[in-house]
């Protein structure tokens, strides 16, 4: 497949506006401005573009939820929080081609009649925020941003808003709270952001990669975009591969390529010639899949059918040497640290689950522990919490137990019982430390 989102990779000064213009950049914007906003929304809907942030919701449909007759100002937010473990594609787009993202933001803002847009970028991405600030300044200078863009009468201001270290702020309503200057606690939905979003106004939140697709759809048409990939799973996708492969990195491939092709052909196979044991197909929240699912097609529907989700496209590859109890403990450490603390099942459940898995791995597992983990996973998922973070840590628990339960059992069988304390030991926030048992 010809590179689309990463077409500028390898160009000298690929980030500068002059390179972008030379490659035909901002042409889609000129085309968009002679279209009606409703026609742009329709075109994106017809392209079948599904959100690349994790949920896979059709982008054009999301834009359509914005009440166009609302007298309130409308906002577009680009979600560059990219905090899902195993995901690093948005960073790549920003490094290679920030103007592609900016052009996508302008077109999307025009399509939903927004006059202010924000890029919410995770706090750790200091360099990336600088790259974006610089690209935005270039775009203002060339009149692609600001008042009366390209003499069309349309105004748009675009600002970078830096987060400060919170995974939860990648969830769109937490992100909105964070822009408003608050703790990033997700909101109950409905109302959805398209109706009541940032500052109480209609808001669309789209992922970096989703917005980067938009100029291409406008320039080359919905039918062209839909011809890439498979039905209902259209377009190019950035796959971020990490872990035990020879060439980890970001690969642009059509949706529907198999995981075997990604690992063997594009990533040069498994590192040190070891055998594949398991892979997480879509960032750490996606349920783990065992090696025998490696021929699954990497698209939203096929991965869902295989019992996981494509999520953000962050593929974490684990070889035969990986201790799955250790791997689950690692993931749960992440979720216990990142739970915002708002909902009891998630706040307590993530800590307790970590506590139990840690106990198992330290050789003090108890026979009832597996059932306890399953119970936690049942109580903290599927609508028991305000946001999907509950599901995000329960998916790994359930799938690790389903596919690799024998490893947990083996630990428990070999365990020496720990001396029971008289009082229950309350879970301590992980981060600084651990607590012994």
């Amino acid at each position: 497949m010809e590179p689309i989102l990463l077409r500028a990779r390898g160009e000298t000064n690929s980030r500068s506006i002059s390179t972008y213009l030379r490659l035909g950049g901002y042409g889609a914007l000129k085309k968009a401005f002679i279209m009606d906003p409703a026609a742009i929304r329709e075109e994106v809907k017809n392209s079948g573009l599904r959100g690349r942030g994790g949920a896979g919701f059709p982008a054009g449909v999301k834009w359509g939820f914005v009440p166009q007759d609302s007298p309130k100002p409308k906002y577009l937010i680009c979600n560059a929080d990219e905090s899902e473990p195993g995901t690093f594609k948005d960073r790549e787009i920003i490094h290679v081609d920030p103007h592609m993202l900016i052009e996508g933001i302008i077109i999307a803002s025009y399509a939903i009649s927004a006059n202010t847009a924000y890029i919410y970028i995770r706090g750790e991405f200091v360099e990336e925020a600088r790259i974006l600030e610089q690209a935005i300044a270039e775009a203002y200078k060339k009149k692609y941003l600001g008042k009366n863009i390209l003499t069309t009468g349309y105004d748009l201001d675009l600002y970078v808003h830096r987060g400060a270290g919170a995974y939860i702020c990648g969830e769109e309503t937490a992100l909105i709270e964070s822009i408003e200057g608050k703790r990033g606690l997700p909101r109950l939905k409905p109302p959805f952001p398209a109706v009541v979003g940032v500052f109480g106004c209609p808001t669309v939140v789209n992922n970096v990669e989703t917005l980067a697709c938009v100029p291409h759809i406008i320039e080359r048409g919905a039918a062209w975009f839909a011809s890439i990939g498979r039905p209902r799973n259209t377009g190019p996708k950035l796959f971020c591969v990490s872990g035990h492969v020879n060439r980890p990195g970001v690969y642009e491939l059509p949706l529907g390529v198999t995981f075997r092709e990604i690992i063997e052909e594009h990533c040069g196979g498994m590192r040190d010639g070891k055998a594949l044991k398991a892979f997480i197909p879509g960032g750490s929240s996606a349920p783990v899949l065992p090696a025998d699912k490696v021929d699954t097609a990497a698209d939203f529907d096929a991965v869902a059918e295989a019992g996981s989700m494509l999520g953000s496209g962050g593929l974490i590859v684990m070889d035969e040497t990986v201790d799955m109890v250790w791997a689950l403990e690692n993931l749960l450490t992440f979720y216990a640290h990142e739970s915002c603390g708002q909902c009891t099942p998630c706040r307590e459940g993530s800590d307790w689950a970590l506590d139990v898995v840690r106990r198992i791995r330290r050789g003090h597992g108890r026979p009832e522990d597996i059932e306890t983990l399953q119970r936690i996973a049942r109580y903290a998922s599927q609508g028991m919490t305000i946001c999907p973070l509950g599901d995000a840590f329960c998916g790994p628990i359930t799938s690790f137990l389903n596919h690799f339960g024998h490893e947990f059992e083996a630990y428990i069988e070999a365990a020496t019982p720990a001396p029971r304390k008289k009082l229950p030991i309350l879970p301590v926030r992980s981060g600084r430390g651990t607590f012994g048992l």
Partner: protein
Amino acid sequence: MTPVHTEPLQVTPPAEVAEVHFDDDMEKRIREILKRYPTKQAAVLPLLWMCQERWGWTSPGIMNAVAERLELAPAFVEGVVTFYTMYQTEPPGKYLLQVCTTLSCQLCGTSGLVDHLKERLGIDFGETTRDGRFTLLDVQCLGACGEAPIIQVNNDYYTELTPEKLDQLLDELV
């Protein structure tokens, strides 16, 4: 490895940031920031960032000043500061070594780096070396897993590290 390009943090001692005032340059930046949002409250995160860049960390005095400037309760601002991990509420060393400890990095050898760091610096996570040069922190996924293992030093990422490369890096951070 990328050449070492990290500037040391300018960390102001606690006594000097017990109470702070914004100078004219900072006031100018605050006014620019406020123009971006329809509410004053939305400027909390950008203002805190500005202060941390200026003073090296976020003291209670800084939180009070931000609260006063934005007409918010100091407790509210403290709540925001402590929710996020990147506002340092204790004065750190000149170099904040933030080691990613999440899965992809761990699969590629982070624990070796951590052992090496702890031994060489003689400190644990959350501690600062006696000479005030390094603070060691464990952080969650830094979003650059393809180049694992990663350590963020102040604002900069150092990727594909090995104990040897790490030694070279530490030697250059003076």
